[in-house]
């Protein structure tokens, strides 16, 4: 069952169509990647989910029911453009955001203590925000996003500004949140983290959905015509009518070569063709990275 659904959402800014009949369906307890080049309409869609702006047409459903203004209290949002009041004390500011999400002061205090302890931030409570480093501020923002235990959490580029250690901490917290039953919409340009974290994705370009589905299914589908050979020794393959060479690399006594088949030639025929060139160690269908899929899909539209 899907926790969140957007059906045929369209949004205009004057003459500009920011979203054109976009639909997404986010299954419960999954991490859902929202991808797309700059200016594709991701932020607009996220703002619509958060009810910061309303769609011109289309419908939004949370838990099978129409999205209501009160639902902001079960949604958590970490925007890409985020900031804190610089002059406020860290603890007070965290309390403020928690209260805006509908928590009582006492309850917010109790939960903040838990999180500040867990993420090693207890000493920061009485510091002013401007005294913290950027990464530290991001951590505070992360906590304020999830403190009210939202059922739906939207992270827009959550890892920017973090060092690898802290990025890993945050990644583990995100996985932990899902385990505890939260559903996560995750928007990023970092395709490696999409492969690592996301179960499903939607790719938006210029206001339109151009790709959607489970990450493994998408990669398998795009793998259809690509294969990877590993040879012992320095081996070069030459293109012929059956395949194109995508990349060749010689490293540590092994050659890794990727090809894509250009016709419906059976793999056996290609194999027997290539076998003459050298000693094959392995032959696999190559799963294209999300990065490659992203670039190819978007460029094919230009």
């Amino acid at each position, binding site marked *: 069952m899907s926790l969140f659904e957007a059906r045929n959402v369209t949004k205009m*800014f*004057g003459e500009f169509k920011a979203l054109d009949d976009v639909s997404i369906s986010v299954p419960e307890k999954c991490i859902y990647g929202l991808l797309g080049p700059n200016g594709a309409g991701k932020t607009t869609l996220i*703002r619509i989910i*958060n*009810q*910061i*702006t*309303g769609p*011109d047409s289309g419908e939004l459903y949370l838990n099978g029911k129409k999205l209501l*203004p009160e639902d*902001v*209290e079960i*949604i958590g*949002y*970490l*925007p890409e*453009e*985020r*900031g*804190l*009041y*610089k*002059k*406020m004390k860290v603890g007070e500011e965290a309390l*403020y*955001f928690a*209260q*805006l*999400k*509908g928590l009582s*002061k006492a309850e917010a205090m109790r939960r903040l203590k838990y999180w500040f302890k867990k993420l090693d931030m207890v000493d920061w409570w009485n510091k002013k925000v401007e005294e913290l480093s950027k990464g530290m501020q991001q951590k505070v*923002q992360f906590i*304020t996003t999830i403190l009210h235990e939202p059922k739906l959490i939207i992270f827009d580029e959550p890892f920017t500004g973090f060092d690898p250690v802290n990025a890993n901490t945050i990644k583990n917290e995100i996985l932990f949140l899902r385990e505890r039953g939260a559903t996560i919409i995750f928007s990023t340009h970092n395709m490696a983290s999409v492969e690592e974290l996301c179960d499903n994705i939607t790719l938006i370009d210029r206001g339109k959905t151009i790709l959607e589905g489970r990450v493994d299914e998408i990669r398998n589908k795009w793998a259809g015509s690509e294969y990877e050979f590993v040879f012992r020794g320095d081996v070069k393959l030459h293109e012929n009518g059956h395949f194109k060479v995508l990349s060749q690399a010689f490293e540590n006594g092994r050659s890794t070569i990727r090809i894509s088949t250009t016709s419906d030639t059976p793999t056996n025929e290609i194999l027997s063709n290539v076998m003459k060139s050298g000693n094959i160690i392995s032959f696999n269908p190559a799963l294209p990275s999300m990065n490659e899929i992203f670039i190819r899909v978007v460029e094919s539209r230009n």
Partner: protein
Amino acid sequence: MSKISVIIKREYLTRVRKKSFIIMTILAPLLMAGFIILIPLMMVSGDKDYKKIAVIEEGSNLFENVIPDTKDEDFVYLTNVNKNELLKTFEADGYYGVLYIIPEAVNSPVLYSKKQPAIGLLDHISGALEKEIEKKKLQDYNIENLDSILKEIRTNVNPVTNIVDESGGTTETSTGIAMVLAYIGGFLMYMLVFMFGSQVMRGVIEEKTSRVVEVIVSSVRPAQLMMGKIIGVALVGLTQFMIWVVLTIATVGILRTTVLKKTDVTEISQNITQSVMEQNQAQVPAVTQAAEISPELAEFSKFFDNAMNQNWLLIIFSFIFFFITGYLLYASIFAAIGSAVDNETDTQQFMLPVTIPIILGLVVAMGTMQNPESSLAFWFSLIPFTSPIVMMARIPFGVPAWQLIVSMVLMVITFIAFVWAAAKVYRTGILMYGKKPSWKEMWKWLRYSS
């Protein structure tokens, strides 16, 4: 606690805790009280601005000692002095200027000085000389007992103003008091609306540039955030105003019992009101000299009665009403501007059209004090952008009820319309970065659907 009250609380507390707020709140009434005490002190001591003026005459001594000294100027009649010599040395001799009278051209004496003399000094000289010349001309008619006749016919006229109400009853009033109240009311309104309105704008810009706004509007509606800020700042303004009033009264009280033990308090109060009347109303009769005031307590108590005859309830109610509505009107415009720009320097182009009506209101309000019945004052006290300031300047002089009601109704309609429009511009503006803002752009945002 509802979300808007959470916002109001934050806006209020962060501002009230600021060092600049605490310093301003404490310092301003001290300065104010200082002025209130110092001005009459300076007037009592009198010789602060003391000037000596030499009077010489060409070839005769008809006007010897006819110009009386005033509290600021001494007139020294010199004989047997060469005018050209004196003009070279008068400043070194301690004179402010030289008055040169030629009996053949007595209508145009010449005052030589290093600086342009004040109009009051010229009035004093011409008054004294005119009187003397008239006296001399009268003497030529050889009237008997001329001196006693002249003494007897000398008259001072002090018009007493009475306001007649509908039932025909009359209340004695004071134009001086009305002017002071008009001035204070108009100016305070201008200051408060402008000061706290622009605080709202700075707050909005801070939220936008620090990018904190997007997180907040995912929890509350933009209009709630805007109104929370506007109300929070208004409460800061009212708090500061209240502390000012209390502290000013307290400081005056303390200074009165310590610094000014010897001086009669009523004397000081009278000096203040007197001086204001002198400044504002050239034709206030019989300029009372500081030294003569003390025994005239009766006059002071009359003055005080006149002050109490003002409709204080109406003034205070109107002030609060026009402050709240005027502030809401301007603060919402300021909030919309703050939402449209990326930083404070970009606000310049928008500030002018907003500042003009406020300044215009102040200018008209100052003119109102001279002529409260003018049609200019009438129209500007109805137009919502200037009415808070101009109406406050008119009320002490009496305003027909229908005009007050029309002005208030227009004010309410306008502020509601502007808060509504500002909320729409604000909603789009706070999430818009890197766009060169313009009025046209803001008009477009106004018409976006939510």
